[in-house]
């Protein structure tokens, strides 16, 4: 249940990059992950040998492209423990997945006044589509708050869930690193008669995921955060929910028939995949999940846990309280996303100075403005890990932060 990270690093071409005279110290996997050679090769082979449009072709390469595309669906289904590949719908990113959920499932099942519960910890991807649905269809939104321990405040959960149709919440905060108690939320949501949608954009990339035991009804995530390419995301749902979800985007491939009077939608995942799908991207994502499975997600999680423990420890003890961690201070129910508030140095400047050391950390609100407001911050500087991250990079981060502090004192 562990792997040689030095060997693994050689799979990632970007780690050979030198920036500002320093080897790249990539600590922004929370924004997007690095891409291993095997994923790039899978896409290159696809384009060089098999590329064709899918589904409607009879000839050899069209059959191969279809096989590659549907094979990727099966790979992803296996990776998350889905009951069937048909439960996996490809979108362009996790954000589209939430829009599909809100607009297609949402408009079919929610009417004016119906309650959806979200959380203050959530990413805009799991907030804005619901605001849009509120504005167009008059649904009511309620919010779980975040407590001073950077956890979801569950004290009023039953109250919030009272009469609610859906709870939609992240499994791991992309700002705090907080891992939320999905099993418990599922149980209580279901007890209250609500369904549970989970934002897995962070969790699926870093923790083992098994939808058979997760308890969720819907799960959204993005390829580019889990070693896959840009341009592809996933919405998983239980078959019974897909069966009651109308189409979202309209166009070719999602129809059973079209006349000048109207259209009949197709069934299966095709129903939600209008137009030419992200074929090469699916192939890349398939390669990514196979790569992750070959390492083992348990091993990835264990590796990142160790690294997070080391980082929390070093960050807590190197700066005389001048660097504050915005998030849980131990690895309990926590992933490798570490937001920093550096005394007297704005996150933009932190990132700028760190860049001089080749260190990549992201400044900003991380698309979680309500959460930032909750903690009275406009922005943080966020370091986040991937399966390829190593303790030496934490050391480089600490040294670079020291430089930033000096420069701005």
């Amino acid at each position: 249940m562990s792997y040689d990270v030095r060997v693994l690093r050689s799979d990632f071409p970007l780690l050979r990059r030198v920036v500002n005279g320093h080897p790249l110290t990539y600590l922004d996997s929370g924004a997007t992950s690095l891409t291993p050679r095997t994923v790039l090769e899978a896409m290159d082979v696809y384009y060089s040998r098999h590329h064709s449009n899918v589904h409607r072709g009879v000839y050899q390469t069209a059959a191969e492209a279809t096989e590659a595309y549907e094979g990727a669906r099966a790979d992803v289904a296996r990776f998350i423990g889905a009951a069937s590949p048909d439960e996996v719908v490809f979108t362009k990113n996790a954000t589209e997945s939430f829009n599909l959920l809100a607009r297609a499932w949402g408009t079919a099942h929610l009417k004016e006044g119906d309650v959806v519960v979200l959380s203050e910890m959530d990413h805009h991807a799991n907030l804005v589509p619901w605001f849009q649905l509120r504005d167009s269809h008059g649904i009511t939104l309620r919010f779980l708050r975040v407590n001073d321990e950077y956890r979801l405040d569950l004290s009023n959960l039953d109250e919030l869930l009272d009469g609610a149709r859906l709870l939609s919440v992240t499994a791991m905060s992309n700002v705090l690193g907080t891992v939320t108690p999905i099993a418990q939320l599922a149980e209580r949501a279901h007890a209250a008669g609500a369904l549970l949608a989970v934002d897995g954009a962070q969790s699926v990339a870093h923790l083992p995921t098994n939808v058979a035991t997760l308890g969720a009804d819907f799960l959204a995530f993005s390829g580019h955060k889990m070693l896959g390419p840009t341009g592809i995301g996933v919405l998983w749902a239980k078959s019974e929910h897909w069966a009651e979800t109308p189409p979202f985007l309209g166009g070719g491939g999602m129809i059973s028939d079209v006349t000048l009077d109207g259209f009949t939608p197709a069934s299966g995942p095709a129903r939600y995949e209008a137009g030419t799908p992200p074929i090469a991207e699916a192939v890349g994502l398939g390669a990514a999940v196979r790569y992750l499975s070959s390492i083992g997600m348990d091993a990835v999680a264990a590796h990142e846990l160790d690294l997070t423990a080391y980082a929390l420890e070093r960050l807590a003890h190197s700066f005389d309280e001048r660097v504050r961690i915005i998030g849980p201070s131990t690895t309990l129910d926590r992933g490798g996303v570490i937001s920093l508030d550096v005394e007297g140095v704005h996150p933009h400047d932190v990132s700028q100075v760190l860049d001089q050391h080749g260190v990549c950390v992201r400044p900003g609100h991380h698309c979680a403005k309500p959460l930032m407001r909750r903690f009275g911050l406009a922005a943080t500087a966020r370091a986040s890990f991937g399966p390829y991250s190593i303790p030496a990079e934490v050391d480089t981060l600490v040294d670079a932060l020291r430089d930033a502090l000096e420069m701005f004192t």
Partner: protein
Amino acid sequence: MTQMPPLNDLYREIVMDHYRTPRNRGELPTPPAQRADGHNPLCGDEISVYVLINGDVIEDIKLTGHGCSISQASSSMMSAAVKGRSLEQTRELVARFKELMTSETADSSDQALRELGEIAALSGVSKFPVRIKCATLAWNTLTQALDDAPQQG
């Protein structure tokens, strides 16, 4: 990805015969016959199946529609095979046929193939995955008709 097998596997003599001279074309009055419509959204193939059930026997069957050689031949062979069979035997045949289609390593023992009779000539389709839907369309539509038919006493 493997190279495709030669076309002879797909277009066997007997398959082409059923395509050129389809059996049981036409309609039956509904009721007493039961009708079901099937179509393959990917290629536009369409079929209507009419079955006249008497007791637990398919007394008559007719087909209309259009499609490729495989879908036409498969529906013609299907109609010839089920006419006069009991409902139970028919459902067994449908199951056997689907097995033949869905798995390249399917049970193709002499015994199994013998039960399928000339339908076994369609076994080559399983090597052309994109054509499997063409071959199964008629069979799925038949199942639909049987499911929709009012229970008889």
